[in-house]
């Protein structure tokens, strides 16, 4: 089985998000970049599914050279090889077009993405890939099994889950539960340096969206502290002042 895992390079989850240039640009100053947590889950599952010589796992990233440490990390975790599409990702549409272009000529049985990237997070790439490649796409997957040419997945829905069967090839956006994360060992880290990382040029894509500016959530007023013995007062404030109960 040939699996393609799409990986994005995102600010570490502890990052306090700020903007520069009149709030038009994400401030990367001092920011540590990591492999998107959901993509790490997808990668771990892909490695499990191909364990013991049952297939290969290629990781693909659309990014400039600064994303290579993240790609090497994916190789250290256990991906077979890697592809970097050399371009700064403009939006999900741009990313999906690049990946679809590569996938079309390289024929994968399964493509995994994370449920969303935690930067501009749109949870769009999986669905767009599905449409571009004319394959089924399922997202927010909590369980993924493959038996022969059929996949069984559990998809999250409001207040429950759906169980689906899907014929390969398809695209799945993974979330927690799909696999336990894999920590790269020394051998993995050493071998990652020599595993193939192919750099390809981006195809041109007409843009459909532009970020005009960013905002951070409005700061809240000071907290009103209430003593532990005055819970009735809290209930009253929630009713009369905040009007939420």
């Amino acid at each position, binding site marked *: 089985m040939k699996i393609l895992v799409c990986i994005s390079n995102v600010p570490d*989850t502890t990052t306090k998000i700020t903007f520069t240039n009149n709030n038009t640009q994400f401030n990367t100053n001092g920011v540590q970049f990591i492999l998107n947590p959901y993509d790490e889950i997808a990668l771990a599952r892909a490695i499990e599914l191909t364990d013991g010589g049952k297939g290969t796992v290629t990781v693909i990233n659309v990014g400039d050279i600064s994303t290579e440490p993240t790609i090497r990390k994916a190789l250290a975790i256990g991906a077979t090889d890697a592809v970097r599409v050399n371009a700064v990702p403009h939006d999900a549409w741009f990313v999906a077009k690049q990946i679809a272009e590569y996938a079309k000529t390289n024929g994968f049985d399964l493509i995994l993405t994370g449920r969303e990237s935690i930067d501009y997070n*749109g949870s769009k790439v999986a*669905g767009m890939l599905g449409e*571009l490649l004319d394959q089924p796409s399922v997202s927010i997957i909590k369980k993924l099994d493959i038996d022969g040419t059929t996949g069984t997945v559990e998809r999250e829905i409001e207040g429950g889950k759906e169980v689906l069967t899907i014929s390969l090839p398809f695209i799945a956006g993974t979330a927690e539960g799909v696999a336990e994360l894999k920590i790269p060992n020394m051998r993995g880290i050493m071998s990652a340096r020599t595993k193939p990382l192919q750099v390809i040029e981006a195809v041109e894509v007409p843009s459909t969206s*532009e970020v005009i500016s960013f*905002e951070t959530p409005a700061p809240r007023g000071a907290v009103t502290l209430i003593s532990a013995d005055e*819970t009735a007062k809290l209930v009253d404030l929630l009713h009369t002042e905040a009007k939420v109960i």
Partner: protein
Amino acid sequence: MPILVYTENAAGKFKKSIFEVVSYAKAIADQQQTTVTALSIGDVSADELATLGKYGADKVLNVSNDKLKTFVNQAYASVIAEAANKEGADIVVLSNSFSGRGLAPRVGVKLDAGVADGAVSLPDLSDGKFSIKKTAFSGKAFANVELTSAKKVIALTVNSYKVVENGGTAKVEDFTVDVKESDFRAMLKEIVQSTDKISLPDAEIVVSGGRGLKGPENWGMIEELATLLGGATACSKPVSDAGWRPHSEHVGQTGIAVSPNLYIAIGISGAIQHLAGISRSKVIVVINKDPEAPFFKVADYGIVGDAFDVVPKLIAAVKEFKA
């Protein structure tokens, strides 16, 4: 050209989030001086379909095809795009629900449309642009995004637009579609409803517990408080990682982003990843025994105290209030 709004149903009924998207579509239609066409797929009664008129739908296209009785992402996306083409709609609105998030990008590609996922505002049409505020960085920020394509798909965040009743009536029309066999490669086997309670993404009140609660056996009071308030329960990541609560309750940057009217955080420290998921809550109450807990910095109301002392007292006070 009308605005097309896809109105998903849950077991034949429309939820409040659907009245939100219809109200939202109506407001866009007013901006553009046009009408709203709703699209319903599946088994929904005529009475239920007609309720969409109350929120601004002028017309409802009703697809009741045997193959489309349950949700099939690829096939539903095809129907939505077909309806948009039939109506000549340039703007398609849907809910950023779990299913909606899977549909929006597919419909976007089919229509060559830019997609604004997680929208939290009406389009801003100033300077001849069409820009929308949407969530970004998993709840830590917002982006104002201009959709530059001729057609546009907007997935509206749940609880981010008010339901407006303007009392109209909608004309319901049957809409027949030819389904493509190749759209049915993913088939639903089973729906497992984990609870009959309010689901977390839809909840207007959320009661959430963290590691401060010590163990799963102490969740009784969290559930009792949530039930009393008509809300849903949630938790921090370490709580679901430890298996005390299901992953579907994990709130935060790598979990669910919620936007309730009231979020009550009990025994949760307020780590930046947790706060990302709740920053859009209208009112935040924090109960924590540590007065230095970072959560107090973003709280509207706070009680410094031991949860095992405070929560039972709060339950008693809510009971008294409800009585």
